[in-house]
């Protein structure tokens, strides 16, 4: 692919040992993947934090995990697509049950979430099978990403930006006051269902690279940190994406030297940034 060749030539200019021409292509692939993933997570995360959906998006990750197990079990050609399908059903399921019953949402999410994880582990170990082969989904490995997968991420990034351009205002409106939004013709139920479906797809697709255990932090932490500094939605998005990019790139490079899992290393850096922004806010308040 020409795009990848261009990218490799560009990275070769960096002063790192892994950046030397022809070496460690997996690291260069991972770097490009992170640069494309960061704006996606940073952008969608702003609404997760607005809507206090952190627990919800965590549950979607668990649903996606079960989807991956079912996909592997059924022996589909592409476990990924069956996982995406399951996650979509799962996310719509939570939305509908939440909408129909008037139970508090964290209870419903808790029930769905634990059911999904239990079902995933049950199915994965059925017949005395070992769970070990699924460990990679728990911790994730961005270094295993292939150029064609990077292509998928680029497509997702474009779709997310288009989606955000047309739907963001209505989502924010519904989040600020659903009754007011509905009185002005916003169909909040479908809007929110579509948003959870988008999160479900994103979490499922990126789970094998980032890891179930830390993926939710990718969504929540940059936005949470940006919230401490931003005064309007433009600053909020800009800062969240900047933090997401900075911690993504620096975390990946750091993980090369510390020989740690990159997903977790990135999250640690984001968490430190969150603490710093929290202190900055305290001081200015």
């Amino acid at each position, binding site marked *: 692919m020409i795009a990848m060749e261009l990218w490799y030539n560009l990275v070769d200019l960096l002063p790192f040992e892994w950046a030397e021409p022809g070496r460690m292509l997996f690291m260069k692939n991972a770097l490009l993947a992170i640069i494309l993933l960061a704006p996606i997570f940073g*952008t969608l995360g*702003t609404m997760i934090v*607005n809507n206090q959906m952190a627990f919800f998006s965590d549950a979607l990750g668990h649903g996606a995990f079960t989807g991956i197990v079912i996909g592997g079990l059924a022996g589909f050609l592409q476990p990924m697509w069956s996982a995406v399908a399951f996650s979509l059903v799962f996310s719509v399921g939570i939305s509908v049950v939440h909408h129909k019953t008037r139970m508090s949402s964290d209870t419903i999410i808790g029930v769905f979430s634990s059911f999904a994880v239990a079902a995933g582990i049950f199915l994965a170990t059925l017949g005395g099978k070992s769970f070990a082969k699924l460990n990679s989904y728990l911790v994730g490995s961005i270094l295993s990403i292939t150029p064609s997968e990077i292509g998928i991420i680029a497509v997702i990034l474009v779709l997310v930006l288009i989606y*955000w*351009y047309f739907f*963001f*205002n*209505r989502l*924010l*409106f519904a*989040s*600020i*006051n*659903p*009754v*007011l939004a*509905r*009185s*002005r013709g916003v169909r909040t139920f479908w809007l929110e269902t579509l948003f959870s479906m988008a999160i479900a797809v994103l979490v499922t697709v990126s789970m094998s690279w980032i890891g179930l255990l830390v993926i939710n932090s990718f969504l929540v932490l940059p936005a949470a940190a*940006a*919230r*401490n500094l*931003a*005064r*309007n*939605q*433009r*600053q*909020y*998005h800009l800062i969240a994406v900047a933090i997401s990019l900075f911690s993504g790139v620096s975390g990946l490079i750091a993980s090369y030297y510390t020989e740690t899992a990159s997903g977790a290393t990135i999250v640690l850096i984001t968490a430190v940034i969150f603490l710093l922004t929290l202190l900055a*806010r305290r001081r200015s308040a």
Partner: protein
Amino acid sequence: MNHHGINVTRACEGPNCGLCCTRIENLGVTIGSDTILSDVNLHVHCGELTAIIGPNGAGKSTLLKAILGEVRHTGSLKFLRSSGVRKERPIIGYVPQHLNLDATSPTSVLDLYAVCCSKSPAWLRIPDKVRHKAKECLSRAQADHLLDKRLGALSGGELQRVLVALALEPVPELLLLDEPVSGIDQNGLEMFYNLLSDIKKDYDLSIIMVSHDLDLVARHADRLVLLNRTVLASGTPREVMASESFRKIFAGMS
């Protein structure tokens, strides 16, 4: 031009208002096995401020939600035009009691205007044209100086004025307000009621407002409706406050 020096687009054409009255007949709301409202009959006139009062749990907010189409109800809602033609759904402006925001939310007043009244995505740079329109809209409720403030940094009274300004774009035929129970000082409330009086005069629209302040309501409302799961009394503030049901419910107050 009204006395704020702003061009006013009236909801009315000609000397009479476009929407002449709102008639609520036999309205009832039952959620599960709980009957919240029954046999509610109301006649709301244009150019008047009708205040709904009643004890906690009387179904005041539910009545607003029924008019908005938020909760399922029995009975009928009729919006009559002066020409006599029935209009199924007029333009309704709604001012909610509060917003679901935590105080740290990075949402400015301009952001709220953008999501409410424009197609310009609030996460991108908002064009000067939209900014200008926002200012003009907010000036109707003397809130234009709040444009770049965060919603969480506004006082209760300021937020209320912003929400009223937004409810006036486009100019509604029926304005519904759910007055906040707390968070606004006496001064702010007085200002708020004066604003409503101006709006009523300038735009000649029907205002239905759920209120908790009997003192202010007595001075500013044209009509009072005492609600407790059904209409117990309605009429001028003087009539309603002299009624037997009013004394029973508000005994010992004011």
